[in-house]
């Protein structure tokens, strides 16, 4: 099961966080800082999975951006690793022309892909369908 998804930059600043298991608001910042430290310290040739407390972190780096997913022990880490890439491909597909900050839209995309810690959709067209519809309506 997926516990959280984080997007952080190389300075360790959180760009997006989504929790699927309850974590107190005041404990999140510390947890994120810790998680990011775990991943930032690792070298390129090291494993993309890290043991963290009683669960595992799966992380992937795209230039200065890190995407970190916390998963419980029974999860298939490699499938999550590829899920991250799928997510990034979806973002790439959607944001290809408009350059802007879109915290809300990234969240909406993520909501289409993961719910309650489970992967609910991986088909790119279908992930983007609701958001595209919303955009169309807002424009038109």
């Amino acid at each position: 099961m997926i516990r959280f998804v984080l997007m952080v930059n190389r300075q360790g600043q959180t760009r997006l966080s989504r929790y699927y298991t309850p974590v107190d608001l005041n404990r999140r910042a510390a947890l994120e800082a810790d998680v990011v430290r775990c991943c930032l310290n690792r070298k390129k040739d090291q494993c993309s999975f890290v043991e963290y407390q009683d669960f595992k972190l799966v992380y992937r780096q795209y230039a200065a951006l890190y995407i970190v997913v916390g998963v419980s022990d029974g999860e298939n880490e490699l499938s999550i690793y590829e899920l991250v890439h799928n997510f990034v491909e979806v973002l790439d597909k959607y944001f290809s022309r408009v350059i802007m900050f879109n915290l809300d839209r990234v969240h909406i995309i993520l909501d289409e892909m993961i719910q309650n810690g489970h992967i609910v959709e991986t088909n790119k067209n279908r992930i983007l369908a609701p958001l595209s519809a919303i955009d169309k309506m807002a424009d038109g």
Partner: protein
Amino acid sequence: MSDVVEKTLTALPSLLSLDSQPGSAKLSSTSKLGNLIRGITELTSKHEEEKLIQRELTSIKDQVSSPNTSMRQMKELMVRAIYCEMLGYEASFSYIHAIKLAQQGSVLDKRVGYLAVSLFLNESHELLLLLVNTVLKDLQSTNLIEVCMALTVVSQMFPKDMIPAILPLVEDKLNHPKEIIRRKAVLALYKFYLIAPNQVQHIHNKFRKALCDKDPGVMTASLHIYLQLIKENSEGYKDLTASFVTILKQVVGGKLPMDFNYHSVPAPWLQIQLLRILSLLGKNDQSTSEIMYEVLDESLRRAEMNHNITYAILYECVKCIYTIQPKSELLEKAAKCIGNFVLSPKINLKYLGLKALTYVVQQDPKLALQHQMTIIECLDHPDLIIKRETLELLFRITNGQNVTVIVEKMLDFLRISKDDYTTIDLVGKVAELAEKYPFETMNTVFSLGGDMMQPDIPNSFLKLLSEGFDSDEEDRKLRLFAVDSYVSLLQSEPNKLPQRFLQVISWVLGEYSHLSAELEPATVMTLLSKLLDLKHTSSETKSWVLMAMTKLCEGGVAISVAQDIYETHSSSMDTVLRQRAQELQHLSQDSELRGRVLPRDAGLMPLEVDSSLSFLDGFVSEALAAGAAPYKPPHQRQEELAQAKALSLEPYSLSLPISMSSCSIADRQSPTLMSMSSGLSGDSTDLSHKGGSTTLKLDGVKRVWGREGYLAQREPVEETAQVEVPSPLRSPSQQAEADSTQSQTPTPTVTPELEQDKQQLASSLFVGLGSQSSVCLMGKSDPTPQRFRRKAQGRASSSGASEKTPTSLGSTPSPVDNLLCNSLLDSNLVSEPTNQTPQASQSLDTTNGNCHEELTDVKENNPSLIHNNEEPDKPKDLCLSSHLPTELSGLSHSEITPLCSNQSVNLSACHVQKEDSLQLVIFIFNSSDSALQQMQLQVDSGELKVNYCLSLITDSPVEEVRSHSVAVCHYSVTVKRPSVHVEVLGMLSYQLPGGTPQTIQFSHKLPLTTFIRPLTLSTEEYGSMWLAFSQDTKQNLTLINDDQDPLTTTLNVLKKKLQLHVVEIIGVEGIVACQLVQDQPCLMHCRVHAGTLAVWLRSPVPDLPDCLLYHCQRALQEH
């Protein structure tokens, strides 16, 4: 492929980090968020960030409550509030506005409102109720986008109690023409099932409909529900197996639309989901498993593309194959698949391979053998997670023979680990393993694991130490060793030791430091008193320390130390400490009283307990007469106190480990002692019952520690018994030495080359995981083991380290065993005084004439004992015996028994009894006209340890037999688990030129008697051993009544037929000893009683007494 994508995606961070181009139309609406983010990025201190965010929150707060704020502005404010909360600053004032936005906004604003609600609120937040109406309205909207949004938020969070309000609407959506609505409705129902399963009880049939939906997305969504349902009750959904299989088949076959592909792999995450469901359904269910074999095979076959995601599928597939009922063909493929994983240079795949292996070895430990070298490499991998996963794997394959090495590896990891979770997890595992190896390992465990370990671990350890083993001398050595090592620990840096360890140390020093001659009580007292001054010493530990001091205060210096301690602690706030200090003071003044209250070696003497406390009667009546209140039991006092709301007197209920020292074993009387001390019958229950009144009852007390270690783990101990039970023939001092050296040097010390080092490590790690396959593996892999083997043999003979390995005369056991011997036992273990060197084998007959005689006897007896359909006097017999291995040719062998035959081969076997093993020789006679090729003989047995012996002439197992000639396979066999007849199963596979591979199977029974050897020992040794053995059996046997001394006659018959050693005969009692090769002693006490022979057998090995009894019975009947 993915590299290219990754390169194009490097532009992504800029998408998200707002290095925006000026002039963009949409920019103005987010520029405030942009400013905020940029501002925060530039800040250097947490304090500044806090100030900035607080300012931002105030500004947001002002604007959201302003009536002039438009919904579009509100949306923008919400995104900023989300951002602030994401950084950890609560924005609770905005929650209600988020709900309002969801309610009143249009399209994107509404969606952001819903998003903000799902991010801000948790499932039990009361504001969530306000969302119900909005959801209801949107679910009924004609705008599909709004329906979609409502369903999305419902499937994320919804108040449990309000489900009935929207359930009919959601159910309705299951029939919606649009797939996206149906899909989201299914996901909403899944959420309902998760939070309130009863609410959706009635619509299970609708789940089935969703499963059969023509749209793959809807079907996929329904799988979430089914995975959950099947997890909870797999029985109820077996009928769906075929459907899941069909779906998987279609997915794997590429029947889905192209856009479900990810990097040309069809719906990989769907495949993974289906595989998980299938493994749950097929677990422990043969018929259901059979349905899925084909599709699993296909999945394995299809997933050949070299991409991460196919490996993710393969991993799941392998797991499934090893979870359901096994099919050998699939297992083979899956094992191969794992091989690709672990050998991969890609570290992520290696990790997954190790994880798969960890899972798989629980089903089939032998698989670890195939990858032993990779595992060794992973153990030293610079990446911690690989190391950690490897340890996890090793933990699963731990057995009695490799436990020390594995524990050492885990401790190495513990030393570098800084993470609490890892420490807790590993300490638990190490403790579980280390309990079998009490001493050195426990010290390390105590100091590293410290206060995180379960409290019963140190308690059991102390109990073990106080109860002691079979020999006083040995106990003394062990305790002395404990005392010495603890004193040196205290002298170095006691402030680093955890509390629990300090408590253990205190108790041991208090109890046993007098054993050390050069150690003055005063020295120990001073060391202990330092503990009291340490800041971090807890008061519980302090009272352990004071108790220990009370036992020690003897002699001038010690008394003055005691006096000092008393003065500091007599005014302690802690009542328990004060009481201990008082006791210390009193007892140090009055050595006579101390001697009575705290007698030395209390553990060895039964403590007299007068539970009625009658000796206090006078005191009580006096006190009562003087006006004291009568005694009330604690519960009554507690009640009254509770009513009176008075202070609790909790501290007095603390109990101290004095009970520990008074433990004694009630029913451990020796029969020899009994017969000397009383004229009573040898009925032990009688006596132990009598003893019970004066000894502490330990019946109810769980005995966690025993001779072999942790008793709770009977199973593994059973296996190790033969190996780990110290030989009774070793003296206790040697034993203690062995124990210590063994745990100090578990890793190989001989390191001529790195590769050999690894080989050694491998052999010590993977020993005991099925000797048969290890032999094949090691024997064939490369010449290194061969070189190694010779060397090892030399070492073994020179050091005489043979306790653990069947280093049989002149024969060579499997390389693995020799390596084990070399690495694990590279210490000065002193072995029993038998002939270990090959040279000595020649002189066996002359130096040990007795033995020879008995061997011949056995040979004579064999025909009557082996009830195989023998056809003796075949001429073949004679000619076969000429093929006996040279090292056995001089010894007498049993009848050559035919095993099986077909048109091309005849198999027969014989055995030769050697002092420390049984040599099994199998003759393969090629009766065909052409040569047998690729011959492989596999011999295996559940009860025996079978080691292939390479002939001295040819270094490798025979692979080819010419026409009409004989090949000989020679095995050294020792007993792993006694049974009346042990059975050897074998299979010969071979190929005739141009023909197909053929196999022929056989089984060969060997009576246990062929493994029994006399055990020569003195009556005293017998006595001490008797006490240590836990497995016993009693029965009456027929007495051979033919002359004046029936006992002697009967015992002589047994001696002759079963090779028992008669230790001594006194009057009507006799004691007899024997051992099962190798080093598994069994003692027998015989007593003539009412015309029968009452025998009582004891052994450390389970089942051995029973089996031996059976053979005694047979032997006497046949006489």
